């Protein structure tokens, strides 16, 4: 195989590659053996520590309720953040400065702040100024923090989605006499929503990962939090971390695969304009490129 870095290997290069493979294999094997030995020395491989995960009790009392809370917070955050994000995304594209600039300021502000700060603030805010019960407060705080942050990210996704459509679409709409609002609701948004779908699913991965913050910092009983109770009960810290990590990996892997399947399907589809926002764009937007958004503009870079 040929790439930009190297040509199809000849006989000497093939030999060298085999040698490198062997050396790397030995190093990797040594590393794995060392990890295995260390685990064994500390008695972490004892079956008694892993056994709880083969029985239903650990799952039904700790892991599954935790996972369901994780998913609940993620789903709530996404459902609330989507319309908010759409409003701000469209506002940023407005022709009126007095709409565009404040909307832009709000979006850039919330993208520049760590989501943990937003959660901590929401938690204290609900405690002081509202009557939310203390059992419900962590969920409210986590969802509020996630909504504030992700609404601003989704606003950028919506904006990039609309900008990724060919100019001809809005020009044609204007030519047949549609108003600005009609162009947006009847022509641009329906197409942008399809273009944005992969990006929205990818954003779900980010939301799921961020719920774990609420578990540690404000006592929201999600997966990472219930892991602590489980480990305190069975005395298996390492094992519970491994199982929880695997759950997160599988969950996020399913979401990522679904997003890239959607992306491929949309790119192939003959009905659409072929404009798609993929996972790479989401990563750029999440970083919070404050002060100008070079990578997320119309058709920029990876599209």
């Amino acid at each position, binding site marked *: 195989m040929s790439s930009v870095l190297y040509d199809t290997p000849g006989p000497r290069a093939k030999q060298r590659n085999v040698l490198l493979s062997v050396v790397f294999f030995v190093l990797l094997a040594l590393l794995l053996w060392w990890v295995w030995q260390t685990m064994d020395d500390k008695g972490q491989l004892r079956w008694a520590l892993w056994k709880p995960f083969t029985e239903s009790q650990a799952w039904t009392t700790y892991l599954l309720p935790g996972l369901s809370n994780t998913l609940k917070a993620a789903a709530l955050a996404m459902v609330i953040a989507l319309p908010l994000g759409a409003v701000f995304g469209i506002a940023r594209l407005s022709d009126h400065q007095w709409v565009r600039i404040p909307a832009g300021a709000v979006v850039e502000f919330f993208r520049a702040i760590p989501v943990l700060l937003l959660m901590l603030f929401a938690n204290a805010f609900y405690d002081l100024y509202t009557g939310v019960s203390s059992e419900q407060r962590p969920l409210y705080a986590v969802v509020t923090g996630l909504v504030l942050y992700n609404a601003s990210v989704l606003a950028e996704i919506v904006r990039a989605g609309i900008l990724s459509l060919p100019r001809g679409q809005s020009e044609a709409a204007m030519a047949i006499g549609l108003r600005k609002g009609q162009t947006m609701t009847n022509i641009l948004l329906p197409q942008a929503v399809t273009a944005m779908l992969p990006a929205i699913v990818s954003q779900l991965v980010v939301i799921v990962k961020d719920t774990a913050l609420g578990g540690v910092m404000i006592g929201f009983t999600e997966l990472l939090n219930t892991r602590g109770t489980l480990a305190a009960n069975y005395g298996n810290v390492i094992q519970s971390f491994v199982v*929880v990590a695997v759950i997160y990996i599988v969950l996020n892997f399913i979401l990522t695969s679904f997003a890239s399947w959607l992306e491929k399907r949309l790119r192939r589809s003959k009905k659409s304009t072929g404009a798609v926002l993929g996972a790479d764009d989401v990563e750029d937007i999440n970083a919070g490129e404050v002060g100008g958004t070079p990578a997320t503009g119309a058709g920029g870079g990876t599209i």
Partner: protein
Amino acid sequence: MFDFLEGYDVLGAFWTTVQLTILSAVGSLIWGTLLAAMRVSPVPLMRGFGTAYVHIVRNIPLTVIIVFTSLGLADIFGVTMGSRDFDVQGFRLAVLGFVAYTAAFVCEAIRSGINTVPLGQAEAARAIGLNFSQTLRLVVLPQAFRSVIGPLANVLIALTKNTTVAAAIGVAEAALVMKEMIENEAQVLLIAAVFAFGFVVLTLPTGLIFGWLSKRLAVKR
């Protein structure tokens, strides 16, 4: 109006945030470059390892990794990171966690930078008789580095925000000090505004400088 700031080392907290960011950035740049080199290497096993690392680490929440460094590595395996002092140890463990996590994103940024160099560039370089290291040094890498600045700046900004997760293992950086203040003082809105302002001050110049740099250095194609 700002007398609630007394008794709290807010500047010190942000200095810890900056230190965490810089150390983790340097570490993850090194480890991420190595991973990227593996992912684009002609050796299938190395490619497999790089791909597996990136996909596994990216899908685990950073919080899980950071909490694991403290509860797992330090408490169970006795990793002390060369210090018995709880604060120093927590700081170093957090840097270790950030490096392990951020390297996966650095690797992807660098790999995508290499992939933006058109195949024709390398083919032309080989056609005029340049050897492997010349092709890499004179043609491919100079173009790749320029297109990598933007994505790497994104990773750096994300890392700056992510350092707040170190609060989960008791590192006295901005988020932890904010948590303490919010619990003890009444002016919740003001406290939140001060810390939000601090992060805007940290991330805004990074975004502006690197955005300008990546536009200036962009390869015109």
